[in-house]
């Protein structure tokens, strides 16, 4: 009778034992990027596999997930599922998602494939490879889910072209470019740990619950199906950080610096999700502030308490981050509303009911700072003077978001920081972004800042209109401007038979 192997032993024999010591080449040449970041790995064999999924089980379970998912996509398309969404405004959240988020899944696929080749330890490598192929799954299922919406709504059709060019999309793009341009260990702390463990929950869990609440069967299905992989990814992220901290004490300050950097960068990136949650979901699930409290403060807090034994503390500027939850979504949506002619989706004034909901959810800030703006916008709109800002915004050199954030202790004043590097002055939206630049100026001076590029004539022109229509390939007046009077709105009314 054969001896019974438990899952850990079996995984070790099937997978961990595949590597060997080189005799004919220098092994460092095969894994050349492990040392330059200063991280010290003394023993890869100490790596604990988070989940011990062999390929045969992987194929089996993933195929089952895909079968379910595509059955729903088929039904959704055959039954014109787009007619069931709560309100056509909702679809604009999907436009932001497909142009801003799905291409990040693609970059995660590329990034994890890179580190999945470069790590010297087979356990870590295989976990990264599985994440690479999962991320490919996510971008592809998202495209397939949106494929049907693309047939009936404007603004999704050039998602890939736009991601490489459009001003606000350089925020997510540069975030992932930054991580991929870093060394393999920083990439893991940036994406595997900071982003996957703490921040993607905010994107996928409450937002997808919101999709369900707004009648979007396709999105909630891919969202939750993707999350079922995410649980593996989160655990990989946590395993990586514990492994690095346990390998050598010299790793602790390096890891802390990366945590400080990537949590700040991540919260900046999530500004757009804050706006989607509070303003773009007609049926509300929870406010951004509430989601932030559950998934960042509570879950992240527990995590950092657990990591304290390694000498890791909460990310720098956590105090600022805590204050920002009251303001982010309002400042961002206002910016898009006033730049609605240059966005790839529609914007609108929240309904009275929605304004009341925001007042209720943000009792300390909304009525005081933000509601008056919307009341004014309403008056202007009623007079037929819907307001658009002309002129190009100044962008933060690090996060690339327009200077829209205020001082958190004085929400009436825009926050500006700057720094002179080699005779040139660079501008930042916050202390967090300033510090990130100062630590690696040679990296961030390279940023492809969309507004600079337009001004330098690298995006066509001569006018902004040509940049938008020719370089960005936006259909002006169709893909963008106010929701009111848009072709999306007209078609919706036709389908629903309302005047």
């Amino acid at each position, binding site marked *: 009778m*054969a*001896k*019974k192997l438990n899952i850990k032993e079996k995984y070790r*024999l*099937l997978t961990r*034992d*595949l*590597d*060997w*010591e080189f*005799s*004919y*080449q220098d092994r460092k*040449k*095969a894994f*050349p990027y492990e040392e*330059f970041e200063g991280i010290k790995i003394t023993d890869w064999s100490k790596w604990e596999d988070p989940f011990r999924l*062999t*390929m*045969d089980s992987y*194929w*089996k379970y993933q*195929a*089952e997930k*895909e079968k379910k998912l595509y059955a729903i996509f088929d039904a959704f398309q055959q039954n*014109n599922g787009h007619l069931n969404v709560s309100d056509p405004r909702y679809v604009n959240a999907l436009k932001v998602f497909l142009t801003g988020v799905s*291409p990040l899944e*693609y*970059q995660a696929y*590329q990034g994890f*494939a*890179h580190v*999945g*080749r470069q790590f010297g330890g*087979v356990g870590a490598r295989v976990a990264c*490879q599985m994440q*690479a*192929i999962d991320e*490919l799954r996510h*971008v*592809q299922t998202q*495209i*397939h889910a949106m*494929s049907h919406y693309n*047939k009936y709504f404007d603004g999704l*059709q050039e998602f890939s*072209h736009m991601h*490489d060019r459009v001003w606000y999309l350089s925020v997510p*793009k540069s975030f992932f*470019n*930054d991580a*991929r*341009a870093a060394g393999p260990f920083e990439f893991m702390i940036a994406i595997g740990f900071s982003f996957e463990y703490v921040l993607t929950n905010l994107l996928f869990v409450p937002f997808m619950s919101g999709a369900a609440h707004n009648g979007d069967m396709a999105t909630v299905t891919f969202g939750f199906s993707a999350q079922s992989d995410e649980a593996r990814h989160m655990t990989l992220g946590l395993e990586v950080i514990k492994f690095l901290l346990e390998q050598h004490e010299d790793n602790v300050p390096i890891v802390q610096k990366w945590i400080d950097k990537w949590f700040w960068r991540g919260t900046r990136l999530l500004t757009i999700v804050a706006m989607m949650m509070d303003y773009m979901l007609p049926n509300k699930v929870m406010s951004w502030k509430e989601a932030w409290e559950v998934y960042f403060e509570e879950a992240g807090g527990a995590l950092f308490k657990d990591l304290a034994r390694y000498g890791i503390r909460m990310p720098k500027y956590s105090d600022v981050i805590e204050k920002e939850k009251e303001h982010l979504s309002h400042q961002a949506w206002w910016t898009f509303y006033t730049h609605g002619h240059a966005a790839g989706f529609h914007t609108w004034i929240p309904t009275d009911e929605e304004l009341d909901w925001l007042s209720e959810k943000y009792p300390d800030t909304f009525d005081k700072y933000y509601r008056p703006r919307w009341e004014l916008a309403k008056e202007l709109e009623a007079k037929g003077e819907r307001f658009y800002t002309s002129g190009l915004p100044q962008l933060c050199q690090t996060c690339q978001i327009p200077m829209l954030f205020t001082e958190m202790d004085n929400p009436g004043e825009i926050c500006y920081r700057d720094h002179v590097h080699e005779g040139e002055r660079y501008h930042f939206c916050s202390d967090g972004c300033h510090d990130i630049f100062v630590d690696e100026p040679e990296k*961030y001076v*390279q*940023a*492809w800042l969309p507004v600079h*590029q337009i001004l330098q004539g690298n995006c066509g022109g001569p006018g902004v209109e040509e940049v938008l229509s020719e370089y960005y390939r936006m259909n002006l007046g169709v893909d963008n401007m106010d929701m009111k009077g848009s072709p999306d709105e007209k*078609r919706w009314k036709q*389908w629903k038979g309302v005047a």
Partner: protein
Amino acid sequence: MSIEIKTATLEPVRNTFAHIERRFGDKPATRYQEATYDVASETNFHYRPLWQPDKLLQDASRTRLVMADWYAFRDPRQFYYGTYVQSRAKMQEAAESSYAFFEKRDLARLLSDDHKTQLIRYLLPLRHVEQTANLNNVYGTGQGMGTALTQAMLYNGMDRLGIAQYLSRIGLILDGNTAESLAQAKQLWMDADIWQGLRALCEEMLVTEDWFEVVVAQDMVLDTLVYDLVYSQLDAQLADSGAQDVAMLTEFMQDWWKDNQRWGDAVLKTATAESADNKALLEQWLTLWRGKAAEALAPLATEMLDEQALERALAVLDKRLNKAGLFR
């Protein structure tokens, strides 16, 4: 009687995404097309990689092969993630039932000691070759251009990890889960003369920088030779000598190779047809790695099979290359 359903108001505004329409015309697209074409970022990268500051994040100059459009590498299987995992799930279901049958009936006890020795000596060390193939294909995924090709390389890479795990399971079946056979096989991989050429070749591929060259060396040259020698010639020899049940355990590899060849042939053909320069470059790489692989495999092929075995495998390779438009 015909039924007319009023659908005019539900006419789609467009059939597919704009980049798909530019390539394939204004008509509904397949899921493979929408999941594959022009998905990768191509321009305006923000920062140069710290790990390779002379290149962009996505950079065609990471290989000497030149393509006007990297999406020319259409996968004839049209695998995107969903179709890929479903195809492999079917194969693994069949494999699982064969492995379960083999174990339940304890078919290993019907194998002679000589057959068991052969499997440990010739088959099990290949799991390290599969591991190399995993790394080489994932390398192509990280370095390569265009989703059409990079996704297919990742599927290949993950397949190879799966095959390495199946080979390991064969070892555990042979040794009753003691892992002794796996340890023996690894010892042979590290020390036995018949394996050193191949191990040196694997290590050399792992330090080769040009990703397309690596894919040519691994997926086209070495795999064609190894799969012919082992899963065709050794398989026949085992069957002829009464160890035909082993084929239950290697059927996955045989089915996989058939499937993978379809893709590999298309890659070779597309790269060759692109330009005379590409053809010359491929022929240069193929000649180089064919020579190295033949030398590396000679002692193994001779001992495992016979003096002519390698010649037969080389003939299979040459025919394959010829079919793709190379060396003619």
